[in-house]
């Protein structure tokens, strides 16, 4: 990493090997400029391992170059390792050149993630005199599409979907000019040679001669639903302030309640809708441009009816492609220059992923017409193919901590550094919110969010993503890891592939994997206490786990204790119908005879009452998610869920609205059957003020979990606790747990680089598999 001893002669030659995110990010031209500035000779080139540099010149100049190399990398670049080798100076080196890519070596390089349009490119598209005025596909080495357009490595235009667009002379000149911002910008394009926008009616007929941007804005203004082709897939857009349009979108998308995310042109326009802290501002404006779930202001439900009613948070993002900016530019009346952007009072556009019926994002134009034609009134498309589908990333801040809710565009395929080297593992995740993870050396690569593996299209995408990532990383797995559940598609995929490759296949218990993901995230080694707060995952005893205290040490996992199990009257059905969990709680309290009366609106209420009071042995679950459902069901705030975790989210929103509250001191019991929360539910049972009850339930839950965890930490002599599982996305709970556990002297670890929910599971599976005896030779 650092430099050399004192030189014998003043002339020196070095070969420098650079690894990390160094291709397609303007790295070589930057090296070229540095070399020129320091009067150095030699060359720079890309190869499968990254970038290789040959430098020859005065020792002092090389030293100065080295310092800048370490500290001034271009915005999208990330240097992981630098290796310097001194060699004999040679004659005949008169210049510094950029050489063609070399195709040898073991692949170590990374494809960069997609990045929002940079200020320079933005200035050009708002400049009437620039040749890219209003051009929707502007990009440079500092910005633009990468992962979503790349078929393979090394990263060259020929291996991207830009291969279909031969460069014009002007673009070719920029591409070849080391002094240009677009030097070797593989997706370089302009209105002459690059992709173009198209405006299609719902039947897919091209409306030639219309200005697509103008038509799109006119349609949105008129309350139409427009499908817009983005970076990693299509969005469905409409005017969020137009309640009719929002309602129509809900009907056509069969998405009755699930909140919609918004796109606005600038922070200033977000402020009346949501609270923004400095972290959130920075995240929203970062080149990754995620959707941030912001704390909603009170008037939002009135201002934007139907967008996210009853939720505590509002999902918002800023524009990230030139196309998005140009839509707002059109709204603003095509002003010249960039100054309008911050002051503009932006329309709020609903921008929801176009993934009908829970299938993956629609990415192809023909498919968009076929599958979105019934939802959208028109389509704003273009002719640059999306090679890799990638959803918007979603994150939230709570108590000063950032959490991923969904990790995808902008963050994938960035590596997560592990604490040690290990074999190549392919971990396949679980069933819902599936991601997969491939480890190579001391790095873990987690795929973009793939979705729920209950339909053929998502399974096809799963296979596609696995093949694509293995191809980009140039590895073959030597170990496979999967969930313990025998009937997940991911499990069967792993078992089939392991048999074909003749490699070990390791089943990892769901909550072991949740905690392991946090340990991997923090490069933690050694034993720790795991508090898994989750929905249901299959336990090693065949039971439905989900509120667990685990002692975890690498591949070893011991179940210390669990939440008291609540009957699950109707398996997955009970997980979608909180009233059933409330019924189970009522039966457990001895009020089983009140179920039918209390849930008279439910056709199955009497049958459930009979079943729960018949003495039949109904399998139970220790899942905290189901306890949340029971609480929401008892408070009558959500009888049947329309989307996953809706009940818990509504409960959390009520608690947030109420503000801090005291726990019920008799709200829990630590018993031989585990941590019993029934006393807290007994309070809810008779509550009159639902917001206060929700707040006190959260406070009691936190107090209970803290007391329970501390007891276990003491008994097992553990000073580190990792929190994992989907319930950690409840910010009220997570904030209290974090603070109270830390106040008692425990080191608290939480998921930071991956979501705490099943989206991070594959990382945990890989981490466990790498430490499993079967994979250590």
């Amino acid at each position, binding site marked *: 990493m650092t430099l050399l001893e004192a030189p014998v002669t003043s002339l020196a030659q070095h070969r420098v090997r650079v690894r990390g995110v160094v291709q397609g990010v303007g790295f070589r031209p930057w090296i070229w400029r540095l070399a020129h500035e320091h009067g150095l000779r030699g060359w720079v080139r890309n190869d499968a391992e990254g970038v290789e540099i040959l430098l020859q010149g005065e020792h002092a100049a090389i030293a100065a170059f080295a310092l800048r190399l370490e500290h001034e990398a271009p915005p999208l670049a990330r240097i992981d390792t630098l290796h310097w080798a001194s060699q004999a100076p040679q004659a005949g080196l008169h210049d510094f050149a950029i050489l063609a890519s070399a195709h040898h070596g073991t692949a170590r390089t990374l494809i960069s993630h997609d990045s929002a349009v940079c200020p320079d490119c933005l200035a050009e598209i708002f400049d009437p005199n620039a040749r890219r005025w209003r051009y929707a596909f502007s990009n440079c080495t500092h910005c633009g599409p990468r992962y979503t357009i790349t078929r393979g490595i090394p990263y060259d235009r020929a291996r991207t979907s830009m291969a279909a667009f031969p460069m014009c002379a002007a673009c070719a000149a920029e591409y070849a000019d080391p002094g240009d911002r677009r030097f070797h910008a593989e997706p370089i394009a302009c209105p002459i040679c690059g992709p173009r926008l198209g405006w299609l009616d719902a039947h897919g007929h091209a409306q030639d001669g219309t200005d697509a941007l103008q038509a799109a804005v006119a349609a949105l203004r008129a309350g139409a639903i427009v499908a817009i082709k983005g970076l990693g897939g299509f969005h469905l857009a409409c005017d969020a302030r137009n309640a009719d349009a929002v309602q129509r979108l809900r009907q056509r998308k069969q998405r009755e309640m699930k909140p919609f995310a918004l796109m606005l042109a600038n922070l200033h326009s977000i402020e009346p809708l949501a609270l923004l802290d400095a972290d959130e501002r920075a995240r929203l404006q970062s080149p990754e441009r995620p959707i941030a779930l912001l704390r909603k202001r009170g008037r939002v439900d009135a201002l934007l009816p139907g967008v996210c009613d009853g939720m505590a948070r509002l999902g918002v993002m800023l524009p990230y492609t030139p196309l998005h900016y140009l839509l707002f530019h059109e709204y603003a009346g095509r002003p010249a220059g960039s100054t309008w952007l911050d002051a503009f009072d932006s329309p709020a556009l609903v921008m929801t992923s176009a993934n009908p019926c829970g299938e993956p994002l629609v990415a192809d134009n023909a498919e968009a017409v076929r599958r979105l034609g019934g939802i959208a009134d028109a389509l704003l498309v273009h002719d640059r193919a999306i090679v890799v589908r990638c959803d918007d990333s979603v994150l939230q801040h709570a108590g000063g901590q950032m959490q991923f809710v969904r990790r995808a565009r902008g963050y994938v395929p960035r590596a997560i550094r592990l604490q040690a080297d290990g074999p190549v593992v392919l971990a396949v995740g679980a069933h819902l919110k599936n991601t997969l993870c491939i480890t190579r050396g001391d790095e873990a690569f987690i795929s973009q969010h793939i979705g729920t593996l209950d339909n053929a*299209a998502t399974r096809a995408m799963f296979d596609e993503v696995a093949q694509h990532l293995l191809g980009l990383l140039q590895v073959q797995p030597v170990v496979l890891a999967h969930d313990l559940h025998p009937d997940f598609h991911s499990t069967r995929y792993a078992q089939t592939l392991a048999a074909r490759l003749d490699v070990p296949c390791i089943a990892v218990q769901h909550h072991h994997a949740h905690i392991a993901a946090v340990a991997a995230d923090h490069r933690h080694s050694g034993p720790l206490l795991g508090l898994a707060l*989750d929905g249901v995952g299959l336990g090693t005893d065949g039971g439905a786990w989900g509120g667990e205290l685990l002692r975890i040490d690498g591949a070893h996992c011991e179940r210390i204790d669990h939440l008291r199990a609540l009957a699950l009257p*109707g398996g997955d059905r009970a997980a979608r119908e909180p009233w059933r969990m409330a019924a189970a709680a009522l039966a457990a309290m001895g009020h089983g005879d009140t179920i039918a009366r209390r849930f008279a609106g439910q056709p*199955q209420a009497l*049958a459930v009452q009979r079943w729960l009071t018949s003495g039949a042995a109904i399998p139970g679950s220790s899942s905290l998610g189901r306890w949340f459902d029971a609480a929401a069901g008892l408070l009558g705030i959500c009888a049947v869920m329309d989307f996953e975790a809706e009940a818990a989210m509504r409960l959390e929103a009520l608690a947030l609205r109420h503000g801090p509250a005291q726990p019920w001191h008799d709200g829990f019991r630590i018993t031989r059957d585990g941590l019993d929360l029934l006393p807290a539910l007994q309070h809810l049972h008779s509550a009159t003020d639902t917001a206060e009850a929700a707040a006190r339930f959260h406070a009691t839950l936190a107090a209970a979990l803290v007391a329970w965890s501390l007891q276990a930490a003491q008994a097992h002599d553990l000073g580190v606790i990792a929190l994992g599982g989907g319930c950690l996305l409840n910010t009220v709970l997570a904030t209290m747990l974090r603070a109270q556990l830390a106040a008692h002297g425990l080191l608290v670890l939480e998921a930071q680089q991956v979501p705490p929910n099943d989206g991070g599971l594959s990382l945990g599976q890989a981490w466990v598999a790498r430490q499993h005896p079967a994979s250590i030779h």
Partner: protein
Amino acid sequence: LSHGGGGRAMVQLVRELFARHLGNTWLEQGNDGTVLPPISGRLVLTTDSHVVAPLFFPGGDIGSLAVHGTVNDLAVMGARPLWLTAGFILEEGFPLGDLDRIAASMARACAAAGVLLVAGDTKVVEHGKGDGVFITTTGVGEAHPHCTLSGSAARPGDVVLLSGTLGDHGMAIMSQRENLGFDTPIESDSAALHGLTAQLMACAGADIRLMRDPTRGGLAATMNEIADQSGVGVLLDEAAIPLRPEVAAACELLGLDPLNVANEGKLVLVCAEQAATALLATMRAHPLGRAAARIGGITTDANHFVQMRTQLGGCRMVDWLSGEQLPRIC
């Protein structure tokens, strides 16, 4: 095997009991094996072990189930069932009254199906080493002269027919086991299908690719087997699948997918498109096929996926399960 005096006494009682209900000239030969007359066609042989709890359920019991199960395995092979053998594993102390009911039920099922029980065996195991009674039946049938039915014969474009409502047997068992006490009790569909299959073979035997009885694992398991064996995909249509309202309600209550629930008197048939209408009409004309329906088709699919178009307009996977339906929602 029990060597206690009680065990020996039980064996004697059991022998008398079986002779009373199931006795016929073949069984009475009393030799180590039964000599059967020659038949003209090819033989089809099948064997199946039957385990069920509870042993008695609305619409049947383990005795009738053991006869129907094996008769149906012959029937879906396009064969005419001729003879059965039965092996009993009894737990010591099993109530003779129950055994009497089971034997009587087997005898009735055999008579109704026109098959003869030609050999049998009984073993008694120690108390706690069995679960009441297990019955293994073996069936011999005569193949249809031109029968080419095979699980690997389904082709893209073919049609899938189902002879009636799904899930009746499994839900009859479940509601009994869970003590659900529905207002309308659910009856098992346990029945012998060879009469129906014979008519279908006569109607359009050459156009029938294959027949199956979707027992354990339900329609989902059966269709996945067919997809794998034939190297094809299957697309089912949820709206077309017949379901009894009480079965639908019970499935909803228990959170079960009727496609994974067992049937004991239903037939799945895959045929060429041109014969579908005639075969469906033949099914519907038969008492066991009155609710028959065309429930889907065979597709080209390298992944051999079985999918179902749902009533909401989506498309979901229909997976086979390795055991009980375990919760999946995290």
